[in-house]
């Protein structure tokens, strides 16, 4: 499914097996988005969180 990048308007491809929470990166501007919701017809994106000092494993 194709979604419009909220930053630059380019097309981002969401694979069919993508799940909510997955991060998609705009191929044009490099912005990261998180899949906020997903139905058969529609994928909603929200801006992904930026890396925090406490991020890791």
């Amino acid at each position, binding site marked *: 499914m194709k979604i419009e990048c909220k930053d630059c308007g380019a097309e981002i491809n969401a694979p069919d097996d993508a*799940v909510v*929470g*997955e991060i998609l990166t705009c191929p044009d501007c490099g912005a990261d988005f998180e899949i906020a919701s997903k139905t058969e017809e529609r994928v909603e994106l929200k801006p992904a*969180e930026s890396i925090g*000092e*406490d*991020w*890791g*494993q």
Partner: protein
Amino acid sequence: MVEICIIYDKLRFEERALYDKAIKKNLNAQLIDAKNLILSTSSRKSDLQFGGILLQRTVSYFRGLYLTSCLEFLGYKVINNFNVGEICGNKLVTSLHLAKHHIPTPETGFAFSAEGARKMLNKMGYPAVLKPLIGSWGRGVFPIRDEETANILVETREENGNALSRIYYIQEMVERPPRDVRCIVVDDNVITAIYRYSPGNEWRTNVAMGGKAEKATITNELEDIVLRAARSVGGGILGVDLMEDRSRGLLVHEINNTVEFRGAQDVSEVDIADAILDYAIKIAKS
């Protein structure tokens, strides 16, 4: 059917692998975004339908730690539990536990002011390594080769608004080959071990820094030290990192609480997600 809940805030390879494998194993699995949860002192376990066992897999250390505290308060079983997370998420506390249990570990100094940090560096000598207490992937880990660099780094840390940046964790620079060893421990077993090689222009070995993974043999010596290290922090699902010191042999320098295993899975025949889920099922049934 065992109900398993994978708590995430950023869905990485690992969380997706765990979820996909859980579905394949016919487990009743759900992915829960930690960012969407709100809880209170009045919350009850029945308010949430999280099933028998929760895998804490948030990329944000503090988010995962304090959420685990809330979930344990409600009566949920969380892997890893709060105590393990609190120890492993903080390098200073980890080092103290390793030393207390006589696990070979690099010489590490702690200081609580800029003056203390300089004093400790002069005492330990150069080169040394300055590491942040919290954080992963080699971020903020700096080699200090002389006093001038030390002064710059200490000054930078002092100006940082984060209170934790003014607690200093200073480690000897271990003389090692350009690689370290990552062992994945699940349920008191070393399920796989890999070497992580530094990329050409980098001394850190983290896969996140571009380090390359290669399968390592789990020798009796490696297994013994890794299991003792894992037990010293409370066990569970852990990534134990070691360096091979040229004279002292294996030294444990870090233990990871929400271990990433993409690099290890690429070179290992063991199905890491499967092993983690089997352990979760065992704990759920216990």
